[in-house]
């Protein structure tokens, strides 16, 4: 009897007793064996336990895509981009999945030159950008400290420039965090999502979106989510048809 209970417990808890790296590898094995649902479930379980990383979200995106769930795949890839914004494979996969959507793609992001110019804002993770701001801040203030004793105008100007860059970078961080908190990006994860003029089934359908459509989530209320589409169209969809990206710090 005791051994039977032990075996059952081992089977039930086997998943959670293994380390996160082993479970990640097991998910990859399931994927290669074409058990995409099993791979996605294993990776989702890791996410639910609070584990977070770019490869985890990327592989989850692949597993969702293989099951034909474009919206869930895009959501996973977008979460992965928070951790590895410069990963070329991720960019490629996101482009492949977006190309399969039924709805016409909304307008793209900023032009490449602008993305390069604002690289801390667009090409760095929030952690990297925070480290950059901290480094600029400390280096700038160290130079200003030194300028109090070594009276060189160049030292003072360099310090002030670094502090100004640190403040700009901090502003960029604040902007990213605030935007993600107040109107996070979201993705339609159901085959169709009717966008209604109000939060309830009795309101008329304004338009219909399809799996994988990307939008902005404005608020949630009693099972309904207010969304913004293409910058000017707003309406309400059922909660379970849309997922929003999590806050950058949270």
């Amino acid at each position, binding site marked *: 009897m005791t051994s039977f209970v032990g075996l059952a417990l081992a089977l039930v808890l086997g998943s959670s007793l293994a380390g*996160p*790296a082993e479970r*990640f*590898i097991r998910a*990859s094995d399931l*994927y*290669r064996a*074409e058990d995409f649902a099993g791979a996605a479930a294993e990776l989702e379980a*890791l996410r639910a*336990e*609070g*584990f*977070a*990383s*770019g*490869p*985890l979200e*990327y*592989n989850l*995106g*692949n597993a969702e*895509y*293989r099951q*034909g769930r474009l919206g869930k795949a895009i959501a996973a890839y977008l979460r992965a981009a928070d951790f590895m914004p410069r990963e*070329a*494979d991720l960019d*490629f*996969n996101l482009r*492949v*999945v977006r*190309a*399969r959507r039924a709805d016409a793609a909304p307008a793209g992001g900023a032009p490449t030159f602008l993305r390069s110019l604002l690289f801390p804002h667009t090409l760095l993770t929030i952690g990297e950008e*925070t480290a950059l701001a*901290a480094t600029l*801040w*400390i280096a700038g*203030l*160290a130079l*200003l*400290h030194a300028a*109090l*004793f070594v009276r060189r105008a160049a030292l003072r100007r360099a310090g002030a420039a670094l502090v100004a860059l640190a403040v700009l970078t901090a502003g960029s961080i604040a902007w990213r965090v605030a935007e993600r908190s107040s109107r996070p990006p979201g993705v339609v994860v159901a085959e169709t999502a009717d966008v209604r003029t109000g939060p309830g089934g009795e309101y008329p359908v304004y338009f219909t979106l399809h799996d994988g459509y990307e939008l902005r989530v404005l608020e949630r209320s009693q099972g309904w989510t207010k969304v913004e589409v293409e910058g000017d169209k707003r309406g309400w969809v059922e909660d379970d048809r849309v997922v929003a990206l999590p806050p950058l*710090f*949270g």
Partner: protein
Amino acid sequence: MGRATLTGLVLAAAAALLAPGRALAQAAVRASTSVQPSVPAARTNFRLVVTLEGARSVESPTMPAVKGLTLVSGPQVGTNRMNLNGAWSYSVSLTWVASVQEPGDYTIPAIRFVADGSAVETAPVAFRARAPGPQDPVTDPAALQEKYKDSLFVTAEVTKAAPYVGEPIVLTFRLWIGTDAISNYRGMESPPIGGFLQEKLGDERRYRRTMPGGKYFIVIERSTLLIPIEAGDRSIAPVEAAIDVRVQSGRRRNPFGDSIFDDLGFGGLDDVTAPLALRSEPIAVSVKPLPADGRPPLFAGAVGQFDLNANVSHREVAAGDPVTVKIQLRGRGNFRNMGPPGFAAPLAGFREYEPERKENVEATEQGLFGTVDWTRAIVPEKPGATEIPKIVFPYFDVESGSYKTLESGPFPLVVTEAKGPARPLVSERAGGGESGAGGGKAIRFLREDVLPLLPPPADLAPRRSPQPALLAVAALAPLASLAATALLARKRERFRLDPAARRREFAYKTALGRLAEDAGPDGVARAVSGFIADRLSRPAASVTPAEVPALLEGKGDVAAAARDLLEECDRLRFARGAASDSGDLARRAAELLRKLKEALR
């Protein structure tokens, strides 16, 4: 009485009230200007001294511009304090080093200062500059250049005067210093160089060189790598080195000791210096075109000597899955402006992606050395046996003066049936169907799929939220430190310029120290009178028992207590045999000092 008359009276009354205060402020500090020597020689350095009698501190003034007069350095600020018959007098002097180019009459207009918080103005000063004589330390550049032509000069050279297009050469500028007269090296200004890609080779180098005749030189050297980008005759303009030459010095230095390295840029106020610009000769470079005979069709401008290595990630792959082609080029040459190796034949049946380039190339005085790696993803579209064409890299070998071609491959590849979802992944460009808008065949993408999984990350860990309070403290702590340091620096500067303020600040601490050193009547009297003197910025000798009530007027009982204690100290000091209790005296003195500290806060 009219309204205008009334206004005039009010203004006159205000002027009358304000005038004495202004006069008092100006009377307190007397400003004078002098030129030393009084008749300086043109093209030599002289001193311009402003003395502010009665001032303890001065804010940095702005010297008005005078036509023909150059300020070489300054102002150096000096504060003086002198005790004359028990009363202290103060003065501040500001000294500039200046020079004029031409003999003649000059006038330095009034200079405005803020001394001890009040506005002060000097009277204009006229002086005459004479023509320089044989004994004067002349600072004329032409004369100096002639004087130092064998010991201060700049040279320029290239490693090859007739390179091929694309062949890297090195341009080197050298400043030769064979005299100890140089007081400041301000740098070499590189000329603009057209027709070449340029790359700086490290920082300026400094070393010593002994010439065949035994003469020592210190050499400052700057090298630049140049890659010619078109054929033709080019002229590299002269480089200009800016230095200051010491024409008269109060101290000797070892001409070839390390001090010349250490001291460059730190000339003293005693030095009489003159700026000197040294130029190299221009250099002619004749860039030869690459020969047209024997030029391979895929030649993309590479010049040098190279090795090629290429491999592919798979020999068997499913249709639609990517194959990575890695190409590495190693050697010496113009890595900066040459094209990548290419396939010898078109890639039929593959989709190509832009190659990713990684470079590990070092610029040295022998040229550009290193490796460049290209990683290129290609995707086979149809199953079957195929091959990736060979990779070729033609280049021009400078050593042999001929073109050579490196090759790697071809690479056989077996493409199996595609995996993945059953969904037909077909899209079309140019309107769909078999024909495009222009009548030609439309391109059909047979399959496009996501790239493979990523390996497990090294840092798979639960997500942690940052602590906002900790972040705020970490961000604000350096700012608070800067504010505190700025206050300290400001205080230190104030104490440096105003010794009386320093005395006032540390009066209590100094008094306690005196008391601790000597608790007898002498020590107590010195501590108490010293404290009062320091706090009131008076000479210590002027704080006598008789003066104390007047000095501490309005401070209440503490004035009488101080007078009594000082009188008791005098009595104990001069009445031999009088009984004294040092401990009690010191205790009372400490108590009095504490009260005085409160009263004179």
